[in-house]
């Protein structure tokens, strides 16, 4: 859990070390490939398939055929095409939310851990309050208050409810790194607090931050999907979450096409996040040499 940062003195070939670390754990390597694959179909899909997916109301829930590889949905639209187009929104929102959470956590955690004093007290208290309200409850409340939302706002809400745990671990790490000699040296040189925090201390936590980012993206996607399943987010035509929700609401899983309509996007979401989870374990091996010894 707690990845202690390690200052590696001599590292011959960062890229080589990275590749070696990645292939070290088989499951992590496979996870990485899955993530790459899904990212590829998500962002290349729209380029290949085109975003025009015409309705054909006379042919709802068609079984898979040569024309429609995965059949059609309730509006007679091609499910395969919809699947290819539907990843952009959930995955982009997930990355954006994860990014927001990590940035907030880095800034608050670093400031609290380095400066201590009243900033630390305030940050700890706010963290405590936000941590105790279950994140999904907080998100649902905010979304019901704010009514209509676009993807950016959804990402912002998820990101702003997801930072507390990370803030605490970054704070703790900054507090321990602060005591190291190189920080002491920087302080004696009068380099300025901002520079010491962001240039001297934070680079030592890159591995931890990358892993935390992946966890945050993972959690954001889950929260997002949860809210889609609840039907809380606005309907958008091509979106894996919306597909699962609308198929489920219509009890569509009793037809072949309906089952595919739910299962295919669900499988892609789960595969993507499983990929992220295993990938994260691989990265842990790279960034945390102590784990390797065990």
């Amino acid at each position, binding site marked *: 859990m707690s990845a202690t940062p390690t200052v590696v003195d001599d590292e011959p070939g960062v890229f080589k070390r990275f590749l070696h670390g990645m292939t070290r754990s088989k499951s992590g390597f496979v996870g990485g490939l899955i993530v790459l694959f899904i990212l590829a179909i998500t962002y290349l899909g729209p380029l290949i398939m085109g975003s025009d997916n015409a309705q054909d109301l006379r042919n709802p829930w068609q079984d898979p055929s040569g024309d429609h590889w995965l059949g059609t949905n309730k509006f007679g639209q091609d499910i395969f095409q919809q699947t290819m187009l539907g990843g952009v929104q959930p995955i982009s929102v997930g990355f954006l939310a994860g990014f927001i959470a990590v940035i907030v956590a880095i800034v608050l955690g670093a400031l609290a851990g380095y400066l201590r004093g009243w900033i630390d007290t305030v940050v700890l208290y706010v963290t405590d*309050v936000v941590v105790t309200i*279950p994140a999904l409850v907080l998100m649902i*409340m905010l979304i019901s208050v704010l009514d209509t939302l676009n993807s950016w706002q959804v990402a912002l809400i998820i990101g702003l409810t997801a930072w507390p745990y990370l803030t605490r671990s970054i704070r703790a790490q900054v507090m321990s790194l602060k005591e190291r000699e190189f920080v002491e040296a920087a302080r004696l040189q009068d380099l300025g607090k901002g520079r010491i925090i962001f240039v001297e201390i934070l680079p030592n936590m890159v591995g931890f931050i990358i892993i935390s980012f992946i966890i945050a993206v993972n959690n954001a996607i889950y929260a997002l999907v949860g809210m889609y399943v609840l039907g809380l987010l606005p309907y958008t035509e091509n979106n894996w979450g919306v597909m699962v929700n609308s198929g*489920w609401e219509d009890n569509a899983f009793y037809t072949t096409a309906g089952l595919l309509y739910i*299962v295919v996007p669900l499988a892609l979401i789960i595969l993507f996040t499983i990929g992220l989870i295993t990938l994260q374990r691989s990265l842990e091996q790279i960034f945390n040499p102590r784990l390797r010894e065990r």
Partner: protein
Amino acid sequence: MATDTTSSDPAVEGSPPSPKEHKPSLWRRLRRSYVLKRVIHSLFTIYLVITGTFFLLRAMPRDPVEEMANSLIANGTHPDQAYSVARARISYDPDAPLIQQYFEYLANALRGDFGTTLTGRTEPVLDRIMEYLPWTLFSVGAGITIAVVFGLFVGMVLAYRRNGLLDQIVSPIAGVMAGIPNYLFLAVLILVGSVWLGFFDYAPMQGRLSPYVEVGFTFEFIGDALYHAMLPIIAYAVTVTGGWMLTMKSTTAEVLGEEYVTVARARGLKEGRIRTQYVGRNAILPVVPQIALALGTIIGGAIVVEQIMQYKGLGLMLFEATWRHDYPVVQAMTIFLTSAVVFANLLVDIINSRLDPRIRLNSKEGA
């Protein structure tokens, strides 16, 4: 909570010898202050949440009193009367000075009075929460209990056979299980088990109870309640177990590397005794606090599970209240959930501080 502080005194005698430079009386004060600090901290957190929900209500783009009054007027209530009824039900008067509203709200909240529900049958918010609470407590509680017992046991076994075949198979699965949210697992469970393989029919399993079953201490009631809660329980248990296995595996592995275990072995103690008295006890200790946190996250996740299963527990209640803008319920639920998590954390901290004196001394780093 003040009673807790004083009641902790008798245990002081049993605590390990204090550092040389401190006299016992100072020690005692230090220790008392740790508990006191935690209590104050917890109460203040709850206070902040209560205050936060008050201002959140105020920040709503739509005034709930206005909305309620409008709907009453639409139903034929006289406008003057409608406003006073709305104020009474939501338990605040939008025309009063903000500070007065705030203190009235605080006083009411302390008395457990959160106004009346706005949707469905009109009743005190607290009554509605109490009606839904047992069901979530039952399903989530059963799920967590299974997960903890099973997870701790398997985790310990894995630690003893590290890198063995069992470990190599189970650990990655546990990792994935820990990472998947309960509602996605439930969806897969229903799709595979019910729709695809036809092992069970999920539609009649929805809801809390079958319509013909009466609540009471009967075999029929308990059986039916279990039948309806089964899928949520499985979903909670399976998704939480993985995390417990991994945590337990790592803490056990850590303890196994400690010198006192080696010494115990060298002394020729029986393996069974080492496993339970030396390793098991010390490995479980650091894991205990996480139960409290698991509670909070699971209740959050219960919202989606209960919605899928139409299981009328706190999660579904909260979801429907939010959906229908039933502000008093949302507000009370937020306070209720937060207080539960805060008190669980407090309890765990106090228990842990008694079990492990280091915590009391390093309370500053206890973030």
